[in-house]
């Protein structure tokens, strides 16, 4: 593993670490809002991964310069970073906010129904309901 390889791949590894922190929050934390925040961290890390794939060393932002007559001037010696990942991630950010808002609405609804947004308390409430239903069914059969 050469020095050049490590330096060239370090970015990807850094974003993977960040992604894993987000995943840890989603798995280990019981609070639903915190899970959504963890999901956001995960998502932003994936975005960074994509953007770093599109980066070109020595390149600049993909915006063409205008000359003074209002025509786009070709900078032949200019290297631009890859605009395609930027477009995809632009779309993904907006979709991410839409899905986040849907998740938050679900949290509000869950809180209204169960009175809590902690995962284990919701599970306890569900178990109680299931037990009661079983008892009712047995009473009906008997």
């Amino acid at each position: 593993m050469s020095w050049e390889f490590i330096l060239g791949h370090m970015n990807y590894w850094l974003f993977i670490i960040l992604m894993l922190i987000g995943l840890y929050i989603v798995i280990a934390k019981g609070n639903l809002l915190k899970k959504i925040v963890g999901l956001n961290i995960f998502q932003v890390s994936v975005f960074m991964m994509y953007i770093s794939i599109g980066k070109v060393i020595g390149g600049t932002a993909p915006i063409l310069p205008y000359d003074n007559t209002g025509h786009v001037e070709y900078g032949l010696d200019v290297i631009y970073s890859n605009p395609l990942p930027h477009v995809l991630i632009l779309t993904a950010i907006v979709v991410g906010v839409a899905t986040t808002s849907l998740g938050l609405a679900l949290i509000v609804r869950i809180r209204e129904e169960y009175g809590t947004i902690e995962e284990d308390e919701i599970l306890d409430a569900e178990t109680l309901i299931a037990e009661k239903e079983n008892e009712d069914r047995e009473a009906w059969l008997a």
Partner: protein
Amino acid sequence: MIETTINIILFVMLVVTALAIIRMDKLFAVVMLSGVFSFLSALLFIVMDAVDVAFTEAAVGAGITTVLMLGTIALTARTQKKSPKFQLMPVLIIIIIGVALIYGTMDMPNFGDLNSPANTHVAAYYVSNSATDIGVPNMVTGILASYRGFDTLGEVAVVFTAGVGVLVLLSGLARRRREDKEEL
């Protein structure tokens, strides 16, 4: 070299923010830190030449998401129940996934390689032809609205669906609350 240094500094700040989010029990602080996280990632996007993504992330990611989350904690709860400090199973899972992902990056081209597959095929066509095809100086705008207009149409469909979903979930929230109060 300077870009790598800035990258690493910003990355360390992002990790510190994420770890603080893990430890915090006050949900208000968690939401604010997630806003901080979005702003820091916007800076990182600027370093990587993605200016459009950076300002979208700063406006939408740090702005709207934070407001929505503040609304949610106002409607639900302000603090989190204390959870056990260290759990073995999640750590094991993320270590396994992390090793698999890092193994997967071994075949990837170097960071910033001009001749990597992602930078050569259709992207090279966009970079050289978008000025004559579309005539918008900002290539990202040109691709978003013209070359890949259907993607954006799909995005609009997703946002619309999510909006309808939120409306359906939250409709009647105020009415049900009022009825509950009257019952009491």
